[in-house]
């Protein structure tokens, strides 16, 4: 099977979405990693975390269309959700220039965060599944430098000092891989 469940669902979403202009989504989390080929498909789940909608006013229409797709494909009604938007501070600055285009279906253009942004966000989240994902992405020295600068900038965004300290522990424990 070449098309993943998530790609299939996004394709249906594009077909169903009724909006007066083009809509852009930014995916983060496991689905972003899987769709960009950074994480193995079978290690990720079919839910999609949307960090950003352009325009923001399209969110309701997209989520309504996603619910219809869920019914059609037998997915959870909230397979596409915006819960992570509460952690907008976790998105590294400059992500717009690094985002990766996944596909365009109808009026829907879907992007995922880049590899280095995904690593940074997963270092900050620091749950066991994030640590496993980071290991799969084989971080390099330049990734570690990027994440370190990212963590330096988080106090200004209101991230708690405890969370940043724990993320630094994760960063320091990473096994660094050379360029291949």
């Amino acid at each position: 099977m070449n098309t993943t469940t998530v790609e299939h669902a996004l394709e249906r979403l594009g077909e169903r979405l009724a909006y007066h202009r083009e809509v852009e989504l930014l995916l983060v989390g496991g689905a972003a990693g899987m769709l960009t080929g950074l994480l193995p498909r079978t290690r990720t789940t079919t839910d999609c975390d949307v960090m950003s909608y352009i325009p923001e006013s399209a969110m309701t229409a997209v989520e309504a269309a996603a619910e219809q797709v869920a019914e059609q494909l037998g997915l959870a009604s909230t397979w596409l959700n915006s819960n992570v938007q509460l952690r907008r501070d976790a998105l590294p600055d400059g992500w717009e220039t690094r985002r990766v285009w996944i596909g365009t279906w109808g009026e829907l253009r879907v992007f995922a965060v880049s590899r280095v942004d995904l690593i940074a966000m997963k270092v900050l989240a620091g749950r066991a599944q994030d640590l496993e994902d980071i290991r799969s992405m084989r971080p390099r020295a330049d990734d570690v430098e990027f994440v370190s600068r990212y963590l330096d900038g988080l106090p200004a965004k209101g991230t708690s000092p405890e969370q940043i300290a724990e993320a630094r522990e994760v960063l320091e424990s990473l096994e660094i891989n050379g360029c291949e």
Partner: protein
Amino acid sequence: MSDRLEHLISQWTRIGAGFDATPSADCPDLERLLLDTARETPRMARLFIMAATWLHRYGDLVAKHRLKRLIRDELEAPHRPALGLLLDIAQQGTHPEQFASVIRELSPAPAPRPLFEIERSSPTMIDRARRRASPISERWGLWCEEIEFKLDALRPPVWLMKQNPWLIARADFRGDLRASVLASLQHDAQAGRSELHLARACGGSRAQVRNALDNLELTGKAHRTRTEHDRRTHISIA
């Protein structure tokens, strides 16, 4: 990823856990799937989270008597705390507690440590896992942080039953002994040879099993046959 883990994931996908994997072609043996999940859990956190989510939502489908029997006979002692933690997390917020009778068969790890291998990689990570451990995981001696059920990645009941009609009877029975009888007849090789074999396989007493079979026969879900030259009662799924 190992073939064993891939197979586990495909079985979970078949019963509605939302991994982006190809579903297993065979009907999973649900109770043995839980045993295998406990064995593989340290290697994949998302497997543990999805299993806990599935059990939280669909715990009624587990044949509890048979699960207890399999734990006693097949699950190696070092893997029992992980299963205990999995079931204990899954039953949080359920009334009555879904897996209380099964959990009584299980004990915590003798030497506390992180649940997941990824958090055992260095003294710093071990200490971090200990600090972040949820109270429930501390009780089981396998540290992991509070698990958030991943309901966004779970297939709905309609899909589950359509793809797995064998689960419908289990849902009707809410995991009681009749579910264990049917599961044993389906998955345990010798279970149908006699009532005694069936009782051993499904974890009930002979009297309880006979009673369950009376009901299953009444509703057309099982058959008992007795041949003249053999005093045993043979049992099969209808």
